[in-house]
């Protein structure tokens, strides 16, 4: 428990930044989805969010350990469920949730340290 608190203290700036980056990426793709591939305000707003997301991600790596920050990118897979269902109104099923869970486990395994 103490380890977790210490890790958070050391990496909290990075953790906050990467959470924002994931959120920006999720919203960026949401706007792209809403644009339906046409040149529109949605498409441009999507690019802005996506770009900010990429920059935040790069900055986040400067403020925290890679093994902590990198797996946290998969937070966007949680955001995607909420945005997809509540904002876009897509229907998801058990396959979607199970698939996302597997991917998240995988990402944590890869990113969670090299030792």
């Amino acid at each position, binding site marked *: 428990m103490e380890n977790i608190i210490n890790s958070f203290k050391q990496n909290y700036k990075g953790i906050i930044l990467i959470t924002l980056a994931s959120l920006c*990426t*999720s919203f960026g*793709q*949401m706007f*792209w*989805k809403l*644009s*339906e*591939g046409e040149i529109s305000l949605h*498409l441009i707003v*999507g*690019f802005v969010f*996506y770009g900010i997301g*990429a920059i935040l991600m790069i900055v986040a790596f400067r403020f925290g350990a890679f093994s902590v920050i990198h797996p946290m990118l*998969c937070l*966007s*897979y949680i955001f*995607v*469920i909420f*945005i*997809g*269902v509540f904002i*876009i109104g*897509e*229907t*998801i*099923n058990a*396959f*979607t949730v*199970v*698939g*996302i*869970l*597997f*991917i*998240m*486990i*995988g*990402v*944590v*395994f*890869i*990113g*969670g*340290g*090299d030792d």
Partner: protein
Amino acid sequence: MGSVASFFIKKSTLTGNIFSVLKSNYLYIGCGLYFLSALLNIYLLKVLPYTVVLPLTSITYIWSFIIAYIYLKEKITYRKIVGISFIILGALVLSLVQGVA
């Protein structure tokens, strides 16, 4: 449809990796490829659900793994293999959604 999507996502995320791997020397190539991957991403979102496309971008990690092994000579650990296996499994399940829906 699911497999075509995966193929495109693979292509798009592959370019994303090159961006991060070579950014110091090949910044402009990287940025261009990153932009290209964004365009592929937009096209995919047009034809497939948002809740499927975004999580499938995790296929990036599989490519990172391969690129890191071949070009950067990073070592393969059991941990990484387990992680990659889970991601492949998850991506397959997500692709199945297309078949079911």
